């Protein structure tokens, strides 16, 4: 018996050594996201400069999927415009639902490493937790 290659290297790396798991000083937006299924609980902290996400980080506790996904997300959105971040979140969430097109997935860069979660219905909520929280933080959804 061997595990399906679900916990790939990108995922385990971002989980074992997350770059963005730290507090942000004087954040403009702080929002808690919770995945009741397993008790994942992250606090997303955003610092904005006008429309631009100047800095971001997260704290909390969760499974490798939720942690790696949040970490990758933050790496992707720092320096981007709010609208662009939301566009990526939309693509990511559709990818996890198995509804995104290939070229869209490509635009997710490292985050595309989570595409296999689409086949694991129980892990979908973990994967999208950070992204949903981002949407909520910007008042969408």
């Amino acid at each position, binding site marked *: *018996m*061997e*595990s*399906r290659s*679900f*916990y790939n*290297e990108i995922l*385990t*790396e971002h*989980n*074992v050594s997350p770059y963005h798991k730290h507090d942000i000083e004087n954040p403009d937006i702080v929002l808690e996201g919770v995945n009741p*299924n*397993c*008790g*994942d*609980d992250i606090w997303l902290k955003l610092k904005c400069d006008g429309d631009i996400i100047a800095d971001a980080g997260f704290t909390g*506790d*969760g*499974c*490798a*999927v*939720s*942690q790696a996904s949040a970490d990758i997300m933050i790496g992707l959105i720092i320096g981007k415009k709010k609208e662009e971040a939301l566009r990526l979140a939309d693509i990511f969430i559709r990818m996890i639902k198995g509804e995104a097109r290939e070229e869209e997935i490509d635009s997710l860069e490292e985050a595309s490493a989570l595409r296999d979660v689409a086949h*694991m219905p*129980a*892990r979908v909520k*973990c994967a999208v937790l950070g992204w949903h929280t981002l949407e909520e933080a910007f008042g969408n959804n």
Partner: protein
Amino acid sequence: MDGKAFRADFPIFEIEKSMYLDNAATSQKPKCVLEAEYGFYEKMNANPLRGFYPLSVEATKAYEDAREKVRGFINAASVKEIIFTRNTTESINLIAYSYGLNNLCRNDEIVVSITEHHSNLLPWRMVADRTGAKIKYLYPNKEGEFDPAAIDEAITERTKIAAMGQVSNVLGSLNPIDHLIKRVHEVGGVAVIDAAQSAPHMAIDVKKMNPDFLAFSGHKMFGPMGIGVLYGRKELLEAMPPFMEGGEMVDIVRFDYTKYSELPHKFEAGTVNAGGAVGLSAAIDYINKVGFDTMNEIEESLTKRAFEAMKNIPHLHILGGDSAEKHHGIISFTLDDVHPHDVSAILEADGIDVRAGHHCAGPLLEFLGVNSATRLSLMFYNTEEEIDAFTKSVASIRERMGFND
């Protein structure tokens, strides 16, 4: 020693090849239970309690025979003390709404152990919120053991209700309910015992145990979903107002007058789940046939096998008791640096079904200082091979998650 000999009784094991080790969540159902429920609908389906024709009389008899079966199972004095509900959660809500809201007020106290499942905690918080009564938590030590002296102290003249589970669904610990019941009776309060995790594993004798209320679920003890039990002392149930109202729980309804039915019907509003009750009755027959002695012997042996192996896995921490005997088939654990969610996902990839999360016991986990845990929970139909596959898989997880020990 394991349960191989019994696996043929359970149709699912022929079809489903994963190893089912999430038995505290719900049990698998033996064929005799499934056939009993099917047979009810095939041979005697009618709305019980109201019809005079043979079919309805038979349906009523099947339903009331199931009640008598449950009465015998827990050795209650009378079938009037056995109320069919949907599950443990509804049983406890019934007590909370009908007894709690009507008997408590400001300055009264409800003593609840912090190890409780949400179903034996949130209804009490609701009662406290609405009546102004206060919740007082009972804390165990880190092994999950309660100090009798602490119970004596927590329960005072102000205590109107003390609520405790017989076996914790996270720690597997057997709680000192006898002590709690005696103590709360000394001060004139009532004891509510959550037997959801004990009823499938040990003989309950309410005459000896002497609780005021006791609740359990059919689905955890080889019965179907949608049927549960509330035992209540007759004097208490008689004095309580109904919970839900509607058909089947009233004798007379006039424009401005209602006469409620006698026990137990007063608390069973609407069409009953007779098919479910018949299934539960068959489950009790099955338990009696196999026998708790046999079940326990297997379960203890399997628990020991798992416990000993887990003790030797580096970075693995078992919640609660430090010996297998204290776990009653339930072993929750954490693995350093790996979220329980991932632990269970890797086990799942290896074909092993266990649960990870807060196990509906948020405050207990908060008290233990963990956010969530993975839980192994056994039934007598489990096998040594399953335990070994489980411990082998657990031992491999940290490496597979990128940690070099």
